């Protein structure tokens, strides 16, 4: 039984990962729907707060979204809130994979078991027994700077100097 569950899981993951790029969300304020991911791009329409949208992709601080009417456009990232992954079965992230994984392991019937066996809570930390051997074993996986650079190059990443951000302590909510 468990083996079939695992095979099904692998199949779903293999088929599903490419489709797993959409998620539902809502606007949290009146916000312009732009025709490009820039603040000085043209406004298609101004959306009121609590407008339902589907996220198609993200580019920097902007989401490419589609309205229920089928109209698409760009919204500033911070003008929306993602719908709860537990209630909507969001596929934007990999949370759905994780939930399948959890329910598969615990033998539950589709209902999620996120409070399951391998949870980590304040009690686990407060009563932790040290495991020094586990620290020693970490060395086997450590990267050298050369490996890290080569791995970054595979993705075309280039290091560049960028100054740290100004602290905005006063504006904090």
């Amino acid at each position, binding site marked *: 039984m468990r083996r079939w569950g695992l095979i099904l899981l*692998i199949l779903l993951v293999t088929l599903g990962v490419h489709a797993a790029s959409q998620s539902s969300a809502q606007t949290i304020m009146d916000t312009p729907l732009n025709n490009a991911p820039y603040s000085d791009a043209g406004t298609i329409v101004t959306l009121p707060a609590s407008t339902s949208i589907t996220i198609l992709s993200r580019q920097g601080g902007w989401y490419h979204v589609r309205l229920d009417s089928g109209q698409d456009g760009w919204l500033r990232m911070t003008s929306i809130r993602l719908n709860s992954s537990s209630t909507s079965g969001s596929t934007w992230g990999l949370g759905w994979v994780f939930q399948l994984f959890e329910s598969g392991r615990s033998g539950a019937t589709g209902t999620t078991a996120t409070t399951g066996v391998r949870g980590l809570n304040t009690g686990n930390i407060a009563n932790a027994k040290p495991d020094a051997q586990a620290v020693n074993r970490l060395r086997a996986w450590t990267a050298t700077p050369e490996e890290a650079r080569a791995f970054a190059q595979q993705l075309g990443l280039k290091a560049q100097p960028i100054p740290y951000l100004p602290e905005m302590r006063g504006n904090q909510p």
Partner: protein
Amino acid sequence: MSVRAKLNVVAHPLALVLLLALTACVANPAGGGIDMGALFNTLKTVKQAVRPADLQEEEQIGYATAATLLGAARPINNPAIQRYVNRVGLWVALQSGRPDLPWHFAVVNSNSIDAFAVPGGYVFITRGLLLHMRSEAELAGALGHEISHVVLKQQLKALQHAAQLDLLGQAVQYELQQQNRSTELFNRVTNATRVLYSRGLDKQDEFAADRMGVVLAARAGYDPYGLVAVLQTLESMDPKSGSMQLLLATHPAPAARIALLSVEMHAGHMNRYGHQAEGRRRYLQMMKQLVQSPGT
């Protein structure tokens, strides 16, 4: 100040400067007072002599803290994923103010959503958090946040204070000098770790790590909004879920972090780097591998 420097007169930086300055005077054959060049070199020597003691103390604290946290959640047995996270993590850490630390990254066996920074260069992330992210840029942002905690020495200072390391006895000073593991220090730090990591840092420390973390990711060539995306995912999750309990007990609310970070990123013109790499394909390939071999 290091434990070692406090009680050992010879190792006290000021004592050493005076001692060596005297030597410099004596060694100056012209007898015309202090040889400034020699004094400058002496100061450099002192700086080098003192710094390793601090680092050594941080290493010992980090070892005990790492052991305690790994006692609560063990590293997963999946070498491919562990090496992946180490490569991404080190690449981001190389852009920080402490590129030369012995950085160790590890995915730990928990489906809760969390990550931990430990003095000395250890960073742990749960499998649950990995599986809730969508791209390498998000991973780089989350690791950048943890790396920043280490760079800013926030846990280090809190642990040193809580474990009252300045009151350690002579025997421990001696053990530290001999580069031995100190059982006394280990036990004190273990106790302090249990308290600190179940209560969390000061809110301002978390905001500071967000602020620095996005810059480290951008310096490494990633889209810096990855961390904001992670925080939006956290915001969307059920706060009553068991998998969120530790994170929410030890961090400011995700919405507050997003609000402050977005203002700071705007002021710092981070939109210039919004087109940088997301690394979505490579990340999803690794996550497929993780689901097939969760490494429990």
